[in-house]
């Protein structure tokens, strides 16, 4: 099959000593980032992005995607040992992970978490290997109206599937679009929303926004709880690993189900967090020991971790094939691709085969390397969290400031970062979702461009959005999603509502 051939070529591109070295560095940095508060996946990738400008795009994306894996793994460490979810999608892991650690079975929980992450991500990468070229070929039929329809669907599904007030979701998105509009207009060259300030000509860079919102904002948020981190200690020795591995095949049904849930939800934006909750809920319903979930059941760790990693990985599929990121971190990676001059989308598979298949090959390897690194170094990372917060917090803020500066070499960006930090803190507290904001900031210009091009072709006729079955179905689906909160309210009045028992604990991200 030609995909396997391309994949083998990708492996050849990736297996150079430099790239393998970068993989290890990336994973270690990624786990570190995932473990420390304020340096989550999206933020960490954003800070390290400018440092990769001097590398070749393939090496750079390999390192950045390994940082992404590392952060995925790292979130589980803090969830299980400290009951602090490192990422929004690790919240579900705390339900059974922390009780297991409290019972002294931290090593078992961690091994289970890491291995199921590996399995989930592996299945997702397999899916990407075979599906991505198909999606790319399909996407070659897309014109400007089709692309705008897909962007519309992306944003409308945030409103439709999001938790919390739809007004707040709309504001978050529109705010992101407004920020994206600042600066020079790509079509007419006019300056928009700059109010005569030459510094604003550049517009707001999504990297600065991400570092501020997810970095500074999260530190301010964690500060509320005080400066203490006390957690359970963990020793992973080979015996514990072996014992756990022997147990895991028992739960193969859970793994398969969770992977599928993860893959499906990962492809749609904002997927990893709902995926982990959905698969936890499903596992609880279908498992023989479902009633014991929450007291420390290994299955309760396997389900969310598999789903979250499958989702996090499959979020890269629409990013590569269509240019639509499925999560804030994928959005940052997308931004990176644009900076390197690569156009994600169907043409990427045709014009940059080495890059794409090198990246996919590195996903397999990065996943494996990640599992090995993480199993061997858990005590090290856990002990880093015991460094007193009063030393770590300023260092993290310094790193964020440096990260913000290296994007454009502009002092003003550091001020913006601080401003975004306050915005992130307030928004998170008031349950304004940040993911649509970041996506709107990254995609704003492109979405607007495709809209204007579509309008140009149709000479102002909105009907072009229903011109052929493909566009029409996507647009209609988008509008249904947009009105879903209203529709579901009507449906709920007609029949008894289903109780979402995790609704209170699910974070708005």
């Amino acid at each position, binding site marked *: 099959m030609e995909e396997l051939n391309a994949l083998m070529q990708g492996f050849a591109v990736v297996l150079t000593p430099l790239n393998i070295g970068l993989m290890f560095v990336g994973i270690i940095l990624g786990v570190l980032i995932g473990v420390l508060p304020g340096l989550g996946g999206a933020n960490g990738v954003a800070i390290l992005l400018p440092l990769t400008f001097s590398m070749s795009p393939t090496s750079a994306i390999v390192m950045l995607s390994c940082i992404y894996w590392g952060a995925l793994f790292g979130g589980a460490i803090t969830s299980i040992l400290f009951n602090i979810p490192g990422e929004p999608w690790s919240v579900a892991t705390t339900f059974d992970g922390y009780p297991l650690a409290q019972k002294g079975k931290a090593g078992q929980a961690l091994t289970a978490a890491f291995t199921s992450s590996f399995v989930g991500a592996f299945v997702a990468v397999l899916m990407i290997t075979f599906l991505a070229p198909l999606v790319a070929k399909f996407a070659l039929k897309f014109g400007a109206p089709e692309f705008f329809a897909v962007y519309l669907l992306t944003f409308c599904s945030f409103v439709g599937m999001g938790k919390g007030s739809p007004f707040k979701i709309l504001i978050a998105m*529109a705010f992101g679009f*407004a920020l994206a509009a600042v600066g020079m207009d790509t079509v007419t060259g006019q300056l928009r929303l700059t109010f005569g300030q030459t510094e604003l000509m550049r517009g707001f860079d999504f990297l600065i926004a991400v570092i501020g919102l997810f970095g500074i904002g999260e530190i301010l948020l964690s*500060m*509320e709880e005080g400066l203490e981190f006390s957690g359970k200690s963990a020793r992973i020795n080979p015996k514990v690993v072996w014992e756990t591995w022997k147990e895991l095949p028992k739960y193969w049904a859970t793994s398969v189900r969770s992977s599928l849930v993860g893959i499906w939800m990962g492809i749609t934006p904002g997927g990893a967090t709902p995926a982990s909750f959905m698969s936890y809920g499903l596992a609880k319903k279908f498992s023989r020991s479902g009633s014991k979930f929450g007291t420390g059941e290994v299955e309760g760790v396997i389900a969310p971790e598999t789903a979250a990693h499958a989702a996090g990985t499959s979020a890269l599929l629409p990013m590569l094939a269509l240019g639509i990121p499925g999560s804030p971190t994928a959005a940052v990676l997308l931004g990176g691709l644009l900076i390197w001059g690569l156009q994600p989308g169907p043409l990427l598979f045709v014009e940059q085969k080495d890059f794409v298949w090198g990246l996919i090959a590195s996903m397999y390897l990065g996943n494996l390397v990640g599992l090995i690194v993480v199993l061997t170094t858990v005590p090290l990372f856990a002990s880093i969290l015991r460094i007193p917060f*009063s030393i770590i917090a*300023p*260092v993290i803020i310094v790193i964020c400031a440096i990260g913000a500066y290296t994007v454009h070499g502009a002092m003003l960006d550091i001020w913006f970062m601080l401003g975004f930090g306050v915005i992130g803190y307030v928004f998170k507290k008031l349950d304004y979702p940040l993911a649509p904001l970041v996506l709107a900031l990254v995609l704003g210009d492109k979405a607007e461009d495709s809209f*204007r091009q579509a*309008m140009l072709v149709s000479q102002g006729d909105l009907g072009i959005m229903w011109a052929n079955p493909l566009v029409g179905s996507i647009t209609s689906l988008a509008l249904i999603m947009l009105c879903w909160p209203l529709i579901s309210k009507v449906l709920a009045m007609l029949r008894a509502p289903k109780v979402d028992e995790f609704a209170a604990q699910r974070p708005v991200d």
Partner: protein
Amino acid sequence: MTDKHPSEAAGSPVLARNCSVDTVVAAILFVFGAVVVFEARRLGAGWTSDGPGAGYFPFYIGLIICISALGVAWQARSAKTRDEGAFVDREQMGRVLSVLLPALIYVFAIWILGIYVASALYIALFMIILGKYPPIKSVVLAIIVNAVFFMMFEVWFKVPLYKGLLEPLSFLGY
């Protein structure tokens, strides 16, 4: 997010409730949206011969912000949906400000003194004042961390960082 925070139970006075902060933020966002709408109208929010004008998209974006802000404010005020939970109490605000205010001063210091010197001062002072560490230890650690950053960025990555208006490190020749 938890509604009942341990410090609230212990009696730390609530500084603001979610519903009031919601209203204020909604008002600010409404103003922001209005600004966007006005700017969009100035740019031309209608159709030109080339299709939508530069202000077309921002006009509707601003409109969405304004309408949604009204929606949020309505939800925050109506008795059914208002969130009476505490936004922040005094203890939490104190902790947050203890990080935010030094960070503000730090960014100002970066502007004057450049990243390395400002960072060294920031880390050292943070450790001494908030962490209650002995001054010598803090200063040494701060200098070591920043020396590492300096080597990493200036020498190894060759990415020059901001040296500040006064350029206190110009004697190093970078």
